[in-house]
């Protein structure tokens, strides 16, 4: 029996089981997510990590996830356009021995920035050492999709360009500790041109200020080391816009209903600007918990709505910001755990100490002594073969 005044508990183990289920088989009704399967892996794996429940992922499952993720890697040849990165699905990978068909299909295989970001984040979270990545090839792919106005498309062909991919570009370069020929200055200009009169950022240029894109803008500034270019007055005005998004939970735009995911987008934005402590933690928590599915676990956008991995993960991160017991700390700008971030920083140190980029792009075997000090690395694993 719980006292009516006692706060509702976060059903940690139900959320873990819920996320775990998505790693296996998804129902046919989720076919419209076929092109973004790696984002589902991201929500599930990073969610389990925040829940301190990665132990539920068996060693075999972990290998399968890592191998499946690497299976979506596109490595262009020298004579092909720089489209390196991850595809995030297998819709353009045919099962055939026919060399000619495989060759033709390559024209429609490109890395996608959002899939590349989520794929690398999953690998880092699972403790992989990224030694199977050619960092330069991927960052060349990022630079290739940057637009003259500083914005980014998702991929070399067939994509819109906006703040979401500015964010993904920044996460990728930051995680790979390499910016290559990515133009940070025009990127900064694009971000600042999208700052609106009410001091939220829009998706692109003069669109409406929005919580998700404001997060993308601020995180990209931080990850590219350009956050301190904002003057003090501007920072205070952005904080105002962000703090005003709290109703009980958070909304994404003025006069819109609250939604669980904005506890992350707005919360993380405020964390980046060091203003999160100005919010009302209890009201935020209460809203997120009102969207908790007590039967099957998971969080939804609204109370009584169907939970999904996206809102489940972002709800957990939102709760982690308020110091919810049982949840790991989350790094706001990369949107994964501080533990995963610590692992990433070790990789950076290793890369910087070793022969640098050339070493990694040619010889992906990694350094055995360093690998031993890196948590749960897979670099020495002979189980993994290229697919």
């Amino acid at each position: 029996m719980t006292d009516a005044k006692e706060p509702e508990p976060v059903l940690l183990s139900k959320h873990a089981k819920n996320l775990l289920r998505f790693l296996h088989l998804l129902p046919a009704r989720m076919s419209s997510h076929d092109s973004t399967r790696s984002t589902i892996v991201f929500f599930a794996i990073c969610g389990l990590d925040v829940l301190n429940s990665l132990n539920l992922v068996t060693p075999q499952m972990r290998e399968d996830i890592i191998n499946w993720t690497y299976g979506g890697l596109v490595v262009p040849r020298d004579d092909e356009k720089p489209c390196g990165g991850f595809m995030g699905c297998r819709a353009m990978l045919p099962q055939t021995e026919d060399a000619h068909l495989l060759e033709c299909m390559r024209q429609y295989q490109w890395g996608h920035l959002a899939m590349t970001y989520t794929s690398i984040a999953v690998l880092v979270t699972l403790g992989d050492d990224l030694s199977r990545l050619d960092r330069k090839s991927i960052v060349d792919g990022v630079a290739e999709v940057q637009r003259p106005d500083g914005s980014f498309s998702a991929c070399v062909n067939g994509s819109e360009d906006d703040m979401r991919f500015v964010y993904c570009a920044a996460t990728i370069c930051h995680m790979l500790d390499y910016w290559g020929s990515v133009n940070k200055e025009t990127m900064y200009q694009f971000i600042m041109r999208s700052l609106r009169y009410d001091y939220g950022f829009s998706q692109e240029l003069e669109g409406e200020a929005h919580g998700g894109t404001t997060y993308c803008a601020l995180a990209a500034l931080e990850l590219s080391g350009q956050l301190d270019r904002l003057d003090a007055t501007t920072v205070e005005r952005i904080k105002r816009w962000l703090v005003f998004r709290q109703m009980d939970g958070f909304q994404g735009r003025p006069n819109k209903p609250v939604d669980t995911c904005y506890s992350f987008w707005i919360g993380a934005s405020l964390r980046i600007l060091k203003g999160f402590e100005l919010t009302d933690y209890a009201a935020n928590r209460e809203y997120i918990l009102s969207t908790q599915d007590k039967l099957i676990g998971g969080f939804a956008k609204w109370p009584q709505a169907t939970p999904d991995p996206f809102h489940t993960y972002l709800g957990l991160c939102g709760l982690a910001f308020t110091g919810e017991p049982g949840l790991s700390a989350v790094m706001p700008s990369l949107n994964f755990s501080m533990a995963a971030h610590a692992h990433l920083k070790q990789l950076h140190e290793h890369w910087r100490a070793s022969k640098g980029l050339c070493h990694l792009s040619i010889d992906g075997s990694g350094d055995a002594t360093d690998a031993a000090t890196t948590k749960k690395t897979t670099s020495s694993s002979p189980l993994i073969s290229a697919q």
Partner: protein
Amino acid sequence: MGDSSDEENLGTDWLPYSERDDWADVTPLPQDDGPNPVVSIAYSPKFREVFDYMRAIIAKGEKSQRALDLTTEALNLNPANYTVWQYRRDILRELDADLQDELDYLDEVIRQNAKNYQVWHHRRVIVQMMNCAQWELELTQNALDNDGNAKNYHAWQHRQWAIRTFNLYDDELEFVNRLISEDQRNNSAWNQRFFVLKHLGFTPQVIERELLYTMNHIRVIKNNESAWNYLVGVLRQSPRGQLNSSPEVVQFSEGLYSAGNRSPYLLAFLIDLYQEQALQRREAIDNNQLAQKVYTLCEDMATKHDVIRRKYWSYVAEHLKTQLSKPSSTE
């Protein structure tokens, strides 16, 4: 939407490609999901077959009418497949297809998937290929007029793009006026208003007119963040860019306060107004009085009118104290 694949599969009139004579020359190509796939989707038989044929066609590089029809079917099952959309565009270019038909097709697809990025992107590329945005205002107007969708971000983004690219600003203010009068809390419409006027130019006359327009709306609904944000945004467009740039607005806001209104947006405006002056006129005799007003308003916000942001309002008061205690101002 892809979500409907289950029920579509129950339809009896759909003939599998494997049973169609005109597809007999094509060998379907299954997806290679690797030896131990994760996040596998239990594709319906129809979804599986359509995409097996789609892969076969792409691998062949076939760009034909039947290939175009196949993309229609594939995109109906998964409108988020950006590669299939790209292949569709490559077919349209190769066939030199009538793009007006494509726009008609998209009218329907967008109606069904108004919040899907890929369909709007496709629309944008087709309009660029045609170099004609004749139907874009109508399309987005329909999307926004659709019940409950007046804030659809995709529709607004597309509309702005069309207006900016094809210089379609002429009647936009009229459209915005209508939407704001239908729902004064439609923040998207206020943003669009700013977008249009920024283009036309915030001349002193325009600023004056806009401040008046906004004050008139605030009189009707005082607790409306969208209108207050717009008011501040317009004031910042004035030559001095300051909140006391317009005596009318100062009088208006102080009048609302005197009349007893305690909307958090009004109080936030007054806090900003007095704070700005306190920092700029640090030697003035009424400086301390201005700062005191800010502290009192912040206290009222924190304890009565905006309790959820109590920590924030204490911070605002503290922040001002710190700034005023600094030896000299470089503001």
